């Protein structure tokens, strides 16, 4: 996990380097602590973005906003692992996480697919890279 803070209006650079090693799945467990800390500080959750970075790994970027300051926390996680959800900390996170379930085939504890795609009937994880795209 890595994080960065930026305060350059109109041009916000995300500079957090992601970890990509065997402990990456473990490192994601800190997200609940981070989310609680952020919530208590009155920080707004902006987005949870998933990106396929090959070999079954997804880079998951949590973006927060604290009085205009963008904070990003990044994790590289195994797509097959069931991850901790922060939807009980931020209600607004439910759909952000469910979107990643539908579009990238991720798994979050206590959340189901079917926000944007119909399970069993729609294309599976359309934002995962297909073999010909890798």
């Amino acid at each position, binding site marked *: 996990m890595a994080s960065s803070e930026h305060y350059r209006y109109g041009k916000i650079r995300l500079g957090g380097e992601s970890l990509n090693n065997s402990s990456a799945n473990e490192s994601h467990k800190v997200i609940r602590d981070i989310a609680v800390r952020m919530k208590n500080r009155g920080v*707004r959750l902006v987005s949870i*973005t998933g990106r396929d970075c090959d070999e079954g790994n997804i880079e998951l970027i949590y973006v927060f906003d604290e009085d205009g300051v963008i904070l990003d926390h990044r994790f590289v996680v195994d797509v097959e692992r069931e991850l901790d959800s922060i939807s009980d900390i931020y209600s607004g996170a439910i759909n952000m996480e469910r979107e990643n379930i539908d579009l990238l085939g991720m798994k979050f504890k206590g959340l189901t697919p079917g926000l944007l795609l119909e399970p069993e009937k729609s294309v599976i994880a359309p934002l995962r890279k297909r073999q010909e795209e890798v």
Partner: protein
Amino acid sequence: MKRPTTIPIGPQHPAFLEPLNIGLELEEERVVGATLNLGYNHRGMEYALALDYKKTQYLVERVCGICSNHHSAAYCQTMEDIYDIEVPVRAKVIRTIMMECQRITSHLLALGHTAETMGYENLFMQCFRERELAMRLVNEISGNRVHYSINVIGGIKRDMDAGMERHTANVMRELRPLLEDLRDVFARDNTLVKRMKDVGVLTNEQARDWCTVGPVARASGLPQDIREDGFAAYDMIDLKPVVRDEGDCYARTMVRMDECLHSIDLIEECLKLLDEGPVIMTVKGHPTGEGLSRVEAPRGELLYHVKAIGGLQLDRIKIRTPAFLNVPSVQAMLPGSRLADVPLITVSVDPCICCTDR
């Protein structure tokens, strides 16, 4: 103990302009629970937009027809961030004028829709009559009514001449008293006020919890307006975010109404900033790197996050629309309300399902 009755509202419902389903739990006429079902309008836009970054600047406007210009502005800003270029000032000012014009058209649509939902057909027509002035203006400036296609990476592709600047100022002068009249109706009409006051309340804490943005957040006392970031020309003009603290349908409506009037102020300020100069700068080569940019669309913060890998195809383009956060917050507003108020409460968040589902 009585068992609640469960009824579906939508996805096809006369009050909704787009498909949206709400599973309501009722005890007699009172809502005790609500579950939102989305996805009826999912088109896989994020997949399609990543295929060719040059075509994306036009395709991205098709995410939504109401805030199309904000989508292309946010995308172009993100790509300019990746290219690390500074857009000419004149282009920034014209982008700001177009964004504020679109805020007026979007808010007047939302206000008209709110009036229609309350059965006030005449007010709906009045909103759309005034909106037409702004719609014609953007058509004259950009050549298009809905998808302006004026933003390109590096600036804008159609300049305003002196005649168009004067015409824009005249339209704003004509629009202001009409919107002030409209504001009086929304603020003072007894029936409207009684239908909206203390209905569908979203508390400050709930607004934070649901991560709401834009007029929905500002109507619940959260003073967040991304225009304060100073993107485009917002650092050159006197922005005064409209914030209220009631959190009900009335507050959300009045925030939009007052923002329409403030948009006129901002456009008039922008017109004074229009000096001679270029409106576009050329960019060379394919983009490489990661960029994040956001604009204040009519419904709130619109975020674009792009990772480019040096070819036509983008590695990832993520769009976090304001409606994606605001629409689910109706689940917090509905419990405790009457069944008859459900359409009004839902419409009061200005639900854009095209943006939500993408």
